[in-house]
């Protein structure tokens, strides 16, 4: 039994930390990645293609490899669509069985030449648009919510409902009937845009319901990994300050009130880390269910929420300034939490996933006969 990263994952983590650490920042716009830097990372590091199978031109890594990378993009508040395109959109694409997905889109996402984004619903399911079938696919009218990195994307994926069935649709932001508008966001390290579709023609991709649900769960897991990385950076920041700052003749971290707050922050991250790793490994092994993924998501969301507030408190007045990076992480916490849905809705969704409406008692924390979330969604081996 082994609960740790592989040597390769550790090397990936360290390399990614070094690469993203060399970027300027994080500043007001996070750690910005210029177009040439994005291309260089794709070419030299292959980060964009980690989660994409080799047969589609990617690096062939698994869930845990992607998680290792995303913890580092989160740590540095990297302003680039690693999460949005290479993890989230890629997960949805991997649930599909279309030649254009396999032969064009996945390879292009993997080499960084295409940025795909997914207008995903929140935990309660709001954000699914209605569509009607047409000869070439479907027609959609409606607005997406704010989509991270939507403004620089070349492919928009969205969930639509056709005759009660959930479908994954695709269009290009430049398509007729599709209007993209950047929105002002609380978190400038993850710029957002809304898409308004007016009778827009979209392609319906081939994916069954359960694969879509599984892929959706995985997108949340990946977003949680980025939250966890940010939370770890925040704890490091708070502890570093508590060790350095002196008042009343000693380091403020020697006072129990400050020490205990830092300890609680560390515990929150430990809980999130353990839950995320177990859930991610369960997804990789095909033993995790949607409830387990949601629990890991809840733990990471709660951890980032808690530590970003506590971090400001530990820093005192300096943590309250624009210049200090503390608020950048707070903004990341706010924006990511907003995308998930209220904490209450997440908690209710977990209860429903585990206990549902079935009155029989089950073991809430062990894999059961409930729906599995597997990394093989849509691919052979299901």
């Amino acid at each position: 039994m082994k609960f740790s990263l592989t040597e390769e994952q550790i090397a990936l983590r360290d390399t990614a930390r070094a690469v993203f650490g060399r970027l300027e920042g994080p500043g007001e716009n996070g750690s910005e990645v210029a177009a040439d830097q994005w291309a260089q990372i794709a070419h030299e590091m292959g980060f964009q293609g980690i989660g994409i199978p080799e047969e589609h031109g990617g690096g062939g890594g698994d869930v845990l490899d992607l998680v290792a990378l995303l913890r580092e993009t989160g740590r540095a508040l990297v302003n680039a669509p690693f999460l949005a395109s290479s993890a989230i959109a890629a997960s949805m694409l991997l649930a599909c069985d279309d030649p254009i997905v396999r032969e064009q889109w996945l390879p292009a996402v993997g080499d960084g030449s295409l940025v795909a984004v997914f207008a995903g619903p929140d935990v309660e399911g709001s954000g699914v648009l209605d569509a009607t079938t047409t000869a070439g696919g479907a027609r959609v009218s409606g607005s997406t919510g704010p989509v991270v990195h939507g403004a620089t994307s070349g492919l928009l994926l969205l969930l639509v409902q056709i005759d009660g069935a959930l479908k994954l649709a695709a269009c290009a932001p430049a398509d007729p009937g599709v209007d993209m508008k950047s929105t002002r966001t609380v978190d400038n390290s993850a710029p957002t845009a809304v898409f308004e579709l007016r009778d827009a023609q979209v392609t319906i991709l081939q994916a069954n319901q359960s694969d879509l649900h599984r892929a959706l769960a995985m997108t949340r897991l990946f977003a949680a990994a980025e939250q966890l990385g940010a939370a770890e950076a925040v704890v490091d920041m708070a502890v570093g300050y508590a060790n350095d700052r002196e008042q009343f003749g000693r380091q403020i971290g020697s006072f129990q009130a400050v020490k205990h707050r830092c300890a609680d922050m560390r515990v929150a991250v430990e809980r999130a880390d353990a839950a995320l790793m177990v859930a991610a490994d369960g997804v990789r092994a095909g033993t995790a269910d949607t409830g387990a993924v949601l629990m890991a998501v809840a733990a990471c969301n709660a951890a980032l929420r808690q530590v970003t507030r506590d971090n400001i408190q530990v820093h005192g007045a300096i943590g309250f300034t624009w210049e200090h990076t503390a608020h950048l992480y707070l903004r990341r916490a706010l924006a990511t939490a907003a995308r998930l849905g209220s904490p209450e809705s997440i908690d209710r969704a977990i209860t429903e996933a585990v206990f549902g409406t079935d009155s029989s008692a089950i073991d809430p924390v062990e894999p059961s006969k409930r729906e599995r979330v597997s990394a093989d969604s849509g691919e052979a081996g299901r």
Partner: protein
Amino acid sequence: MWPKGKFSNSCDSIERTGLMDLTYPHEVESFRDEICAFLQSSLPSGWAGLGALAEVDREQFLNQWRKNLVEHGLIAPHWPQQYGGRGLSVLEQSVLTEEFVKAGVPQQPHPNDGFGMNLLGPTLLHWGTDRQKEEFLAPTVRGDIRWAQGYSEPGAGSDLFALSTKAVRTEQGWRVTGQKVWQTAGITANWLFALVRTDPAQVRGKGISLMLIPVDQPGVEIRGIRNMAGQVEFSEVFFDGAHVDHTHVVGGENNGAKVALTLLGFERGAGGMAAAARNSIELNRIVELSRKLGRFDEPAVQERVGRCLTAVYTQRAIALKVVAAAAAGESLGAMSSIVKLVASTYRQQATELAIDILGQQLNDLGGDNPIELLQPQPLGFDPLSTETWLSDFMNARAISIYGGSSEVQRNTIGEQMLGLPREPRR
């Protein structure tokens, strides 16, 4: 440079070393099957957990069950076979305790068992003389010797090394004077392992010894203390010229601090999975309670149950991490502080939820007496037993206090994990 294609998980790729793997080794899974078979054959058909047994039948079942466990070497399974154990590995211990919890049977039926099997026994195995092992281990397994721990004193709680119970040399050994307090299961103990000051010239952690003290003598008086739930579950003990034989010092004179600290280390690596399973069973009982009271569909209940589910999931995830590290022989360091903090926070969270669901039922109490006081009730317990929920809630308040208070645990996490400076002391 990060070569592309390095992550391939196809069969003909570079073999990936040390892959994260949360499955148990084959032989441990075989052991799990063995334990499940043992449970199946030992328990009556239709067994629904100790909690489902009628209160009048509990004592008889537990006595018989304990005999069965002793016979099969399962009461102290981590001990070497020659002393009545099975020499189980950490993973096997973890699986054993977990399966027992899931079947709703205790692995250590008597309140004193844990102190003998998990604390005193391993201490003797590590530090004890052959004579001490000979004298104490087998009777402990049999249950003829029942241990309680004499550490805390009225003036020495969190600050253990402020203890002042002292011993002076006599011809046969030592004469002990002082007082210990808060011994769990003290009233059913017939022996104590106690930290006593043996060198008056030294202070704090220096000059103390671990002594084995028989209760059945004039100089030892145990008095039960009623806890706030109304149960006499712990005790205080007065030593007024109690005799300790010179062969009953463990680990050497004035070496008590070191012995005690290693003793504290012989713990929870293997118990986390079982603890998560207990909480899982209890959470099911909370949900059953809320359904029976027609409250499960309330959004607030759904939300709080959801938070408990996440908490138990994370507790189990941490347990997996800890047991994997323990199995690999890695030091757990301050992780045990995180484990205890998370566990105590959760017990209070869960029992608060149960109390809130009960609402006015708290003013219309009924039901059975609890089986467990320091742990959740075992499988099968009636969810409508309000007396028991009240006891669970009350007893949960102690978990953040004993075994190192939550404040002490946070100090440990802050100092040992985060490297924050210690507080200056007088």
